[in-house]
């Protein structure tokens, strides 16, 4: 009676309340849930878990590797900087040494040149002195000759000794 009443209610009312279909729904739901549960818990979930774990492992490994590479790059940069610094220092040292060497050479060359110049100057001085001496001598001789000639022209007579004396006295002034 109750089943018939329920079936009658189901004809007009909500199929949800039709109790005669409940065993069917519940049975197939149970089957479905068991199948899904086994598919998920045996295959899908462990696989996804392992993939996720593997991925996070890969990512952290990659990050570690990147970190390491970064350290290496930093070390390489430091080494490069150091090499650059050393090279610069070496270059400065070489420049200083070369400069000192050149300075020294220059000094010695200058000294030599000075010596040579001094020598040449002395030589020239001697030559000039000699020339001057000759010139004075010549002038004296010419003056004496000229004086003698002039005295003779005036008609006076003067001996050579007197003229020499007078000339020498005049030249000294």
């Amino acid at each position, binding site marked *: 009676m109750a089943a018939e009443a329920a079936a009658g209610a189901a004809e007009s*009312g*909500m*199929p*949800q*309340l*039709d109790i*005669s*279909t*409940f*065993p*069917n*729904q*519940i*049975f*197939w*739901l*149970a*089957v*479905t*849930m068991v*199948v*899904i*549960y086994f*598919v*998920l*818990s045996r*295959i*899908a*979930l462990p*696989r*996804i*878990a*392992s*993939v*996720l774990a*593997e*991925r996070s492992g*890969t990512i952290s490994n990659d990050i570690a590797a990147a970190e390491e590479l970064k350290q290496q790059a930093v070390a390489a940069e430091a080494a490069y900087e150091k090499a650059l610094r050393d090279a610069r220092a070496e270059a400065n040292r070489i420049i200083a040494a070369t400069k000192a060497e050149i300075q020294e050479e220059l000094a010695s060359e200058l000294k030599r040149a000075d010596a040579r110049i001094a020598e040449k100057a002395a030589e020239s001085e001697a030559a000039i002195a000699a020339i001057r001496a000759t010139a004075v001598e010549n002038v004296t001789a010419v003056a004496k000759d000229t004086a003698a000639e002039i005295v003779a022209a005036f008609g006076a007579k003067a001996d050579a000794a007197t003229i020499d004396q007078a000339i020498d006295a005049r030249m000294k002034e």
Partner: protein
Amino acid sequence: MAAEDKAAEGGLVFHPLEQFKVHPLFGDGPIHWYTPTNVTLWMAVAVLVIVLLMVVGGRSRAIIPGRVQSVGELIYGFIYKMVEDVAGHDGVKFFPYIMTLFMFIITANYLGLIPMAFATTSHIAVTAVLALAVFFTVTIVGFVKNGTDFLGLFWVTAAPLPLRPILAVIELISYFVRPVSHSIRLGGNVMAGHAVIKVFAGFAAIALISPVSVAAITAIYGLELMVAGIQAYVFTILTCVYLKDALHPHH
């Protein structure tokens, strides 16, 4: 959402509940518990979709996931985090069970939204079984894990002593109402949405109203797309909350 051909009969014919009818797949005999019905068909489709999404989609085990695999992984991460956050760390061993519930409900909800499909989760028989399974699981786990301490759930030590017996009665009632609200919330939401769409579809028989009707169906369909996801989420998170009560009754 069955038979648009009802409208072809002319006039206003409303059969909004027709779509929920359980009928045998082959022939027209009586429905025994083992009869393959449209329930069987759509549950099988749900299983197939879940297998495609969770098993076939992830078969390459790619480190860089493809589309289907990343959807599967997203759902996995989402539910796993939910279980861990809500039910606590010891709730994680119930994760496959909760994942089964969530996958079934969300798949069935969305399959039910395909025109002409049968929404298995719109039936109170289905949702009640799911909710009762959660209820019994939680209750059994609660007593096995905590023994009689589990009854502390009903004895609110934070309240003043005279109030506690009253609160205990209220807590006890609310505890037993849980499976009812848990199941009717899901079944009712799915059924109501589908029935409303069907009612609007009935109005489409009148030429003048039909544009409004089509627009309304579109709007409600959009709403139902949200409801399908939200109800699956709500059912799952409530399961986690109940599980938390069973594992840690003194919170």
